[in-house]
Each structure stands twice: as structure tokens, then as C-alpha cells.
């Protein structure tokens, strides 16, 4: 009688933990890529270019998401629009992940406003003051009498990190700012809001937005390649160790002329002048 009871209880326990334990989904893709939403258009175009040869699965989420995923082992390629931090390298090594970084493109962060806004140019200092909250009205920077609505990115964004380093220089963005989750979201808000100012990668500048010059310099492919535009930055893809197999093929494709032409088509600057 007791043996039966034990066996029954054991069966119950096995059933419970067996059902709870079955939660693993097999990755179907050959190569997984995740991370920066700035690099995302490049990644998607590359995936499209490799249809039929390699199955590439692409997702966004921000540079920090990509790097964290590489460290956790849940992705093969991490896309990021900022350099990896020291703390991230430490965590990676602690996890026996040894990141190998490739620069795959150059990007400029464009400052955008609504097309009806009369302002044409802002200096880095003015941008910092606006985002800190010390300048609150457009007429303080040469526009009409209207309040400034600041649009910023969430903290997992590489675009935000670059903005924080180059423009904010460590100062905090005003807490009354709108925080959005992607380049497209910033573009959406700024194109619908006459008071708004925001920052996006140049690939996301549409006719519904007006790009300002920063200190007289406009954001473009040329000024991004030679870094004469102040808010310019390189874009990266990182792998765990030097890549091999399908992952290596993807990286080589991105760095090839064909891949760099894709980078240019998508709206970013290639890493070298193409023939």
C-alpha cells in the first residue's frame, strides 16, 4: 500500500515538473542577429540579400539587447551602434564569450523637427541645453514662441548612448521628455508634432521630417564617412570569437562591395568609398 502511494506521488511529481520543464524551442534559423534598431535596416536588407542561401533571422531591441544576447548566448551576431562597454566585455569573458567586433557601416544621427518649424540650425551646446531642459521655448533658439517637446530614446538604445556621449556629455535628459522605443517611433512623433525635436539615424529621415544642421554641418553619407558631421558614429556587428560557417559568410557578405552597396542603398554610409 505504501509503495503504491510513493509511486503515485512520484508519478504526480514527474508529471508536474515534466510539463513545466518542457519549454525549449529549437532555433530554426541558420544565423540569428539581434540588437540595434539603427543597424536593423542594414541587417534586414542583408537577410533579404541572402534569401535562398542562408536563413538569417533578424530582430531589434536596442544595442544593449544585442550585446546582452551575445553574452547570454541567445544570438550569433549582435548588432550595435555604440562600442561595447568595459563592463560588458567583463561579463562576456566571465561567460566564456569572446566578442569579435566588425565595423560594418557609418551612421550620422540627424536632428529632426517638424517641417513647419522655422529653425534651420542648432549648435551642440544648444542641443544639450534643450535636452537638459534649460531651454524650453523655440523662440530661445530662433524659432516661434512655442514650447519645445523633447523626444528621446530609451536607455537600451545605442542611438541614445551616442547622443548621451557626444551631445549630453554625461548630463541627464530632462525627465519631462518623451522616451520612445525606436528610431521609427521618434520619427512618428516628430512628424506629427509641430513642437517636437528628436534624433534619428539618417536612414530614418523621411520627407515628413526636417533635418537640422548641427553647427553648420549637415548629416549625409559624405560627412558620415569622414566624420566631419559632429554626431557621426560607426556601426558594428559582433560575434562570439572569430566567426565560422554561416556566420562568417554573413559577415563577409556585409563587408563585401555588394554588402556595402546594400548599406548605401538603405541610407547609411559605407566604411570605404566604393568603386
Amino acid at each position, binding site marked *: 500500500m505504501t509503495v503504491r502511494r510513493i509511486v503515485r506521488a512520484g508519478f504526480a511529481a514527474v508529471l508536474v515538473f515534466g510539463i513545466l520543464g518542457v519549454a525549449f524551442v529549437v532555433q530554426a534559423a541558420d544565423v540569428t542577429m539581434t540588437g540595434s534598431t539603427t543597424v536593423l535596416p542594414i541587417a534586414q536588407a542583408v537577410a533579404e540579400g541572402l534569401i535562398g542561401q542562408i536563413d538569417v533571422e533578424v530582430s531589434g531591441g536596442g544595442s544593449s539587447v544585442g550585446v546582452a544576447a551575445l553574452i547570454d548566448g541567445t544570438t550569433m551576431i549582435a548588432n550595435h551602434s555604440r562600442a561595447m562597454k568595459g563592463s560588458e566585455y567583463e561579463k562576456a569573458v566571465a561567460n566564456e564569450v569572446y566578442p569579435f567586433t566588425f565595423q560594418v557601416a557609418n551612421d550620422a544621427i540627424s536632428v529632426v523637427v517638424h517641417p513647419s518649424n522655422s529653425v534651420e540650425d542648432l549648435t551642440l551646446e544648444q542641443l544639450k541645453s534643450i535636452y537638459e531642459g534649460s531651454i524650453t521655448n523655440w523662440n530661445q533658439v530662433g524659432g516661434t514662441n512655442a514650447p519645445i517637446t523633447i523626444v528621446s530614446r530609451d536607455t537600451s538604445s545605442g542611438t541614445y548612448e551616442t547622443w548621451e556621449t557626444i551631445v549630453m556629455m554625461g548630463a541627464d535628459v530632462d*525627465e519631462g521628455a518623451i522616451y520612445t522605443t525606436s528610431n521609427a517611433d521618434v520619427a512618428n512623433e516628430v512628424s506629427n508634432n509641430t513642437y517636437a525635436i528628436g534624433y534619428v539615424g539618417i536612414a530614418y529621415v523621411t520627407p515628413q521630417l526636417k533635418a537640422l544642421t548641427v553647427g553648420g554641418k549637415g548629416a549625409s553619407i559624405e560627412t558620415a564617412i569622414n566624420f566631419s558631421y559632429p554626431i557621426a558614429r560607426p556601426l558594428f556587428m559582433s560575434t562570439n570569437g572569430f566567426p565560422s560557417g554561416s556566420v562568417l559568410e554573413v559577415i563577409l557578405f556585409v563587408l563585401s562591395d555588394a554588402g556595402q552597396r546594400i548599406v548605401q542603398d538603405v541610407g547609411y554610409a559605407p566604411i570605404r568609398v566604393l568603386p
Partner: protein
Amino acid sequence: MSREKEEAEAPMIDLRPLRPVGSRGLLRLVRKHWDRPVFFSLASISIVALGLIVYFIFREAIPLFREVQVADFFGSQWRPTSQVARFGAMPMIVGSALVTVGALGIAIPLGFASATFIAEVAPGFLKDVAKSVLELLAGIPSVVYGFFGLAVVAPFLQGWLHLATGRTALTASIILAIMALPTIASLAEDALTAVPIAYREASAAVGATRWQTIWRVTIPAAFSGLIGAVILGLGRAVGETMAVLMVAGNSPQITASFLKPVRTLTSGIALEMGETAFGSTHDHALFALGALLLLITLAMNWAAEGFRGRLARKHGR
């Protein structure tokens, strides 16, 4: 007794025990001895899962308080990536409260009114149509509501009220109200329909009008069910992440104004979840927000059940 009388007196339900198939073999053994363990284990899966979730969230949240004082955690500055990192959750608590109050303020009157209409006033075909529409509304995914809020409600509010931005607590409240409305209306309608028809008949018998009956007899009689509907609607509003993330503006500021962007506990976690490397202080802080959310939900449910119980006893249902 004659045959006819025997048949008339035989019970209408066959109470004889079912004969199991394969009555001598393994199947009989299984049915007789294993049914209880199987059902018990299946039922306990949800409890075990809940227990594990609570355990893991608190396990990751507690380490935060080695580095941040509890008082600082309820401070007014949320700046996790600053030079001097601050993890004050108050802006998000206030944001959640504001958006939830706003949502319920819209959804409860509308929901109860819809429920009353469907249960008491609507003619047959309209009743079915209205109920189907409610089911449909309840089935729409939250990201679709968020998209609708972003594309339609936010620009409309910005234009109409001349706001700095359409992404405000009010926008989030409106969207949440639309999401909670089917839940509240559906459950309230069930509660009202469950009131025995004898109550309404008795009320009519003493000369009450239809409105007097609804207001003074049916609704009080259905009170505990109505409170249950509110609790579920409240739960939906507090727990909603995607729609709020898209339309509320996500500003970590403490404000009592519905016309300013706010950040809630749920969207605060979703917004920064990707940034955190496992084990960092920021990571622990986000888990602490999750733990806070859990505690608030538990406290809410507990208080609401207690309230419901008292009212049920008071109103005799």
C-alpha cells in the same frame, strides 16, 4: 405495483455507476487508482508555476537593497544610467495610479451602463449583437489598441486640447478604458442577469417603475458580481504594458496632470529590460519594480475580495 406506475416512479436520471471499458484490465486499474494523482498534479501545475515565478522575481529583486536604501527606492528620481545612478520608483508608481484611475473612471460608468442596457433594456436581437461586439472588443490584441492610440487618439487629443504632445496619461487612460470595458461590461452583464427574475417580479408587484427596479433592486442584488467585474477590469488596467508603452510618453516625472506624459511600472520594465546585463544593479532594480507590481496586484486582489465578501454578506448575496 403495475408496470406503468413503476416506470412513472423510476428516477429520470440513471444513477447506476458507469461500467468502465475493459473492466478487468489495465484501464480499470488506471481509472481506479491513478485518477487522483493525475488530476492533483495537473491542478498543482499552476500553483507551482506561480510559486516559482514569485520566488524568482523576489530572488532577483532583493539584491538591489544591498546597494540602494528602501527609502531611496521610493524616491522621485529614476536615472539608472546617470553618472550617479538613482532608482526612485515613485514616478512610475504615480504614473500607474494616474493611468489606472483615469481608465476606471471612464470604463466603470460606461461598462455598467452597457451591462445594464444589455441585461435589462435591450430587445432580444440587439442583446445578441451587443454581446458579440463586446466579445470581439475583448479579443483584440493590446498592441493593436496601442497602435490605434498612437495613430488616432494621440494626434486628435494634441490638436483638440493644444497639448505639447499627444502622448499623455489621458491618452493611455482612454485606450486602457477601451480595453477594460469589454471585461467589465461582460462580467457586470452576467452579474445582472444572474439576479433571479423573482426579484424583478416582486419589485413590479409593489409598483416600481423599470428604472426604480434596475437602480434599487437589480443592481444592489448583483453588487458582489459588479465588484468582481471592477476587480478584473482593474487588474487588466494595472497590468497592461504594450498599449501604455506606445502612447503614454514614458516620461519618468511625478505629475498629477492627465495632460502630461507619464511612465507606468509595467512600461518602465518593458522599456529598459533590454538594457540590463544580468546581475547588474539596474537589472535588480527592474526586478524590484516587478516585485512591487506583484505586491500591488496581490494587495489589490486581497482588498477587493475582502470588500466583495463584506458587501455580499450585507446585501445577502
